[in-house]
């Protein structure tokens, strides 16, 4: 049995979320603050013995903040288990409590925590006239946490994350429509009082950065003691009897030591001297109090580990932090093995950020090998390295959209072949694709090198600051990776940047063409055709997918860069490409000719001459705030990064103002005026259209105006 689904409704930073899990090892990927800890907390409220009590103490801070007014709303945490069988006696009690019966069999189990207004409030809500907002507001004013109840249900059939389902079960607060049915069967039956999930399953939560050394030293949390007790359940008294005897003998030997009995006499005498016979204690002895209780004696057992030198074993506190953690995790896993003996039929290990515990390589090996039957492992990470260890099908990505956390499964709805491709791609590039907020996909070195520089120079903001990851898919093909971005999968924007490869020379065959020209015309024609084919394939891939867009250079990146008005920048580096003065002169003439057939051919010749990547690096130093970014790149950028916040817009304008001032200090007056407008824009006093107009008036020559006009 394993957890197949977790649904969170109105819980902390989750409005509605569905997390899917597979048998075995599962990964939750998410940046800081994306809700990993809350997601685990939700699971723990249902399964962790140490936290279950908290389920009865939910309060207003546990409601999703995006709700605004929480009064009247429900918090629902729902776990679904699959791989269950009514024919396995060991599961019977569990399934009796929470198994969903479908037809003649139990096909899954559901266990839910529902925090909702009690029946009298629900009754009052149901009696409200439809649309009577005033009455609803008045009623909600009266509701307090004391009117809330926590119920645990099983056998539920509802898809709680579906807003329509929520409206039908809880109500529609906008339309003021509340269900008349106060006990809807879809939320399942209240679990029987005798049901105790912690008797049925094993659950361990390993917190990030927990102090394992301290846990080893604490008798309550020491996993070694748990193991010793768990191995056989109870201690064999017969086997322990001789030990008890030894301890008792030891105790009396200590008591009989000459020094000990001498001290006892001296104490007695001194008391009698001081207090007199009447007031002295009647008897007094010194006893050796070594416990003969097995439990207490076991506490003296300590684990010693030789870490580095083969012939030296040290205590846990001497181990490196990583070593101690490794031992700790291992003992936990062993605990699960023993629990199987004790008849828990499913075990769950939740590890928070294992990168905090152990070295990633060990971790990878550990998780790879940790395929104990009936043990499901769920861990969270923000390390790209660990995500490789996990199968893309076993990955959930948490993303934050404002204050709302969302969950995506990158492989939903893909066929096994597609999943295989992505898996191999992720394995190969060790990509941070899954961690990005938004993505620009490019296909060549030039784009990978130059686009970040262009954006930094022109907008004054780096891609990292915009939360955009630029990923060079090289020759993998866009579609194989781009399919990840989809309503069903990763709901983040992805913009593809590629070339249309339209020919920039006249392709009309001319009988006067030499063989070379004939050949290049033929080649250009073939490229153009292939480009069209690629474009239409990508267009259909993006069709109906709001997360995905494709943006094309009409010709190729270098050519479109020139066409955008940047021949001067290329001219400035000709000397880095050619050394022959004649060639330099010719090249410069070509570049400034204004004839695309000449300048385009020249820039490509230059790139080929030193290699496209190296050319891009040389060109990089010629990129200044004054270059023109080709329009398709701007479009791609702001398709990936959207919506653009006013703060970002203000930063861009601010940067451009500084650029202008640096170039020409005489413009200080305009700068100051513009700065005031910018501040007013920042405070919301004027809108973007106003500040854009002012910018155009103040600095009509700035590159940014044409770009701002498109935003």
């Amino acid at each position, binding site marked *: 049995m394993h957890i197949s689904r977790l649904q969170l409704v109105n819980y902390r930073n989750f409005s509605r979320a569905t997390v899917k899990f597979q048998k075995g090892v599962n990964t939750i990927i998410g940046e800081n603050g994306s809700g990993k800890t809350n997601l685990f907390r939700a699971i723990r409220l249902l399964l962790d013995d140490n936290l279950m009590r908290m389920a009865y103490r939910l309060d207003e801070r546990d409601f999703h903040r995006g709700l605004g007014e929480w009064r009247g709303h429900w918090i629902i945490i729902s776990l679904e288990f699959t791989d269950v069988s*009514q024919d396995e006696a060991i599961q019977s009690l569990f399934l009796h409590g929470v198994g969903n019966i479908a037809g003649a069999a139990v096909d899954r189990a559901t266990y839910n925590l529902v925090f909702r207004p009690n029946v009298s409030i629900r009754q009052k809500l149901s009696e409200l006239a439809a649309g009577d907002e005033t009455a609803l507001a008045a009623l909600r004013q009266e509701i307090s946490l004391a009117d809330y109840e926590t119920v645990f249900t099983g056998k539920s059939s509802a898809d709680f994350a579906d807003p329509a389902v929520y409206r039908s079960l809880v109500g529609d607060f906008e339309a003021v429509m509340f269900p008349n049915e106060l006990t809807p069967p879809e939320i399942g039956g209240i679990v029987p*009082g005798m049901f105790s999930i912690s008797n049925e399953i094993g659950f361990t939560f390993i917190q990030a950065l927990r102090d394992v050394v301290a846990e080893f030293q604490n008798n309550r949390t020491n996993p070694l003691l748990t193991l010793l007790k768990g191995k056989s359940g109870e201690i064999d008294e017969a086997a322990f009897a001789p030990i008890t005897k030894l301890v008792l003998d030891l105790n009396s030997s200590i008591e009989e030591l000459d020094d000990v009995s001498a001290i006892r006499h001296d104490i007695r005498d001194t008391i009698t001297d001081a207090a007199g016979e009447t007031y002295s204690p009647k008897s007094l002895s010194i006893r050796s109090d070594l416990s003969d209780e097995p439990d207490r004696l076991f506490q003296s057992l300590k684990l010693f580990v030789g870490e580095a030198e083969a012939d030296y074993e040290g205590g846990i506190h001497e181990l490196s932090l990583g070593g101690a953690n490794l031992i700790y995790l291992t003992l936990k896993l062993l605990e699960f093995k023993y629990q199987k003996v004790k008849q828990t039929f499913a075990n769950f290990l939740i590890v928070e950020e294992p990168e905090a515990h152990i070295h990633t390589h060990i971790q990878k090996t550990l998780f790879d090998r940790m395929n104990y039957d009936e043990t499901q492992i769920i861990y969270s990470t923000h390390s790209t390295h660990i995500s490789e260890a996990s199968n893309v099908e076993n990955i959930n990505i948490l993303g934050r959209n404002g204050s709302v956390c969302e969950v995506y499964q990158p492989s939903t709805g893909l066929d096994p072949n597609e999943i295989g491709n992505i898996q191999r791609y992720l394995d190969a590039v060790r990509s941070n694709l899954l961690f990005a907020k938004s993505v620009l996909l490019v296909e060549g070195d030039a784009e990978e090198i130059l686009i970040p520089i262009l954006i930094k120079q022109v907008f004054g903001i780096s891609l990292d600051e915009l939360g955009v990851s630029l990923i060079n898919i090289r020759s993998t093909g866009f579609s194989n990776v781009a399919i990840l971005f989809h309503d069903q999968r990763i709901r983040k924007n992805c913009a593809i940047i590629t070339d249309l490869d339209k020919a920039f020379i006249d392709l009309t065959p001319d009988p006067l063409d030499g063989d070379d020209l004939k050949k290049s015309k033929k080649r250009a024609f073939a490229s153009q055709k292939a480009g069209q084919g690629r474009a239409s394939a990508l267009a259909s891939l993006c069709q109906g997918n709001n997360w995905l867009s494709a943006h094309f250079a009409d010709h190729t990146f270098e050519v479109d860069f020139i066409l955008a008005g940047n021949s001067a920048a290329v001219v400035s580096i000709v000397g880095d490409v050619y050394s022959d003065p004649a060639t330099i002169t010719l090249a410069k003439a070509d570049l400034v000719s204004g004839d695309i057939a000449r300048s385009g051919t020249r820039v490509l010749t230059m790139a080929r001459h030193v290699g496209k990547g190296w050319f891009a690096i040389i060109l990089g130093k010629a990129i200044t705030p004054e270059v023109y970014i080709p329009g398709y790149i701007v479009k791609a950028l702001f398709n990936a990064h959207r919506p653009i916040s006013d703060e970002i817009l203000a930063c861009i304008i601010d940067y451009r103002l500084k650029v202008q001032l640096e170039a020409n200090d005489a413009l200080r007056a305009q700068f100051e005026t513009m700065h005031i407008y910018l501040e007013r824009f920042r405070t919301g006093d004027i809108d973007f259209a106003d500040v854009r107009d002012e910018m155009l008036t103040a600095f009509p020559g700035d590159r940014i105006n044409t770009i701002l006009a498109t935003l």
Partner: protein
Amino acid sequence: MFVWNADDLDADQVEAIKQPGSVFLSACPGSGKTRTLTYKIALELSLLTTDKQRVVAITYTHRAADEIRERIEQLGVDTGQLWIGTIHSFCLEWILRPYAIYHPALKNGFGVINAHDSERAHEALCLQHGGGLRSFDCGHYFTPTGYVISCADWKRPKVDALLQRYWQELRANRQIDFEMILAYAHQLISDVPSISILLGSIFTIVLVDEFQDTKEIQYGILGAILKASKGQARAFIVGDPNQAIYGSLGGYAITSAELSRLSGVAFKELNLSKNYRSADRIVSFFENFNQLASNITAEGELKDFASVISYDCSTNRNALEAEIVRLIRYNIEMVGIPPSEVCIVGPQWPLLASMTRHLVTALPEYSFSGPGMVPFARDIDNFWYKLARIILTEASPQLYIRRNRWAGEVIAAFDLAGVNTDAITRKSLLRVSNGITSNVTDGLANLVECFNAMLPALGIDYTTYPMLTEHYDAFVESSQKRIDRLTADGVDAIADIATFRKVFDLKSGITVSTIHGVKGAEFEAVIAFGLLEGMVPHFNESDKVAAASKLLYVIGSRAKKNLHLISETGRRRRGSELYMPTDTLLACSFTYDLVT
């Protein structure tokens, strides 16, 4: 493994509990049936291999369940994996509540109404549409295929129409009564096979006490569960076909072959036929009404006691009370039997009520107890009844285990009502209860005052929980009604708090009871009256001889030492015809003694 002392059980009892397979045990009165059952449960509990398994025992009453559980705990066996209770509790806890969402009539939640409520509903319907029907005409029970109305043939169509209305009303209110608990449980078991499969693998053994009073539908439910377990769960069926006195409610003694067919379980048939309770003379008397082939022998300490067995068919009904007073005095004052060992048995409630009234006045020096003297509704599922048990009893070592369990039941009921019980433990609940007193002498007022002091002390405002409010109203109203009725019958002391406390007191005073009410009990002296054809057996019974024999068998076998039977003269039926002594009793030739 659980081991017992050599003299705890006799050879037959040991043979029964040591059977590895399923057992079908016929046990004569006083044969240690409950003891055998108790030891069998203790043994089964000690043999459990995992904490996923349960031992399930079905008893006829809550009291029997409590007593057996206590005895097992006293034997030092952990009862954590034992479920024991009535068939109705079983159906509620194991079938209806967990699987309600799979039944169209239960999926939106349901409430259980008690016998008092359903009687009241019948009454109201009778008044409205009944055409002369009374609530006692509405008796009915469900079978696996339908339902049976117990009243006389000619009333049946009318009662049927009335029941249809009644069920409609309940459905509209999302309520079910005790009979419907069984009907719906049976429907769920039949329609959703997974339930039996799951339960069948949780239970290692299902023990049934008093099988002779079990209904077909109950056999159906248990049979389906046993069958689904494919031999994994065993059965231990105990009872006495001779004591099957609940035929009018649908109870009957199934044969082992029939139950085998129903459950797929192969039974070993065994008998317990040694009576350890009564004198030989008593045994030889009730043997006259034994309808089985078995031969009962007296083996107990009282075996050779010189019993007095008298039969009086000449006393007039007007002199009946005086005669019973004489018999009571004879047994207590002459023979030296303690009052708590004397029981007065009559066939019907109205006769007993007037008898109680007279006896209380005629014998002021003795106290009387029994079901008829309870001032409030004994509705085990009512929250306030559960709480009253704790309030009305004192903290004492003898009652410690029992009150502790009752406290657990109160907390479970709080949970069911939706109250957050995180901060309440059994101990804290008992502590709060022990600290609350009231000086009011009126029992109900006293109880209400304690209720209203206790819940706030626990930090609970019961008025915000619908279930608690409903139960509160039901408890107070039905108790008041009972008190009024008993006071009208002349039992003045009934409203007194002392009477309330006596209900949960360990047995004291002379017991007054119906024949059905003394089931399972034993007394040194039993005085039975109203042994009249039409009452014993009831005029509705089809097989009069069998019905009368079973009742006489039950009456006779309650007595350890002395037995006094009275068929008083001068009682009139509703016409003008006089009641005559029970035919079956007259037909029995026995040399009776005279009481002088």
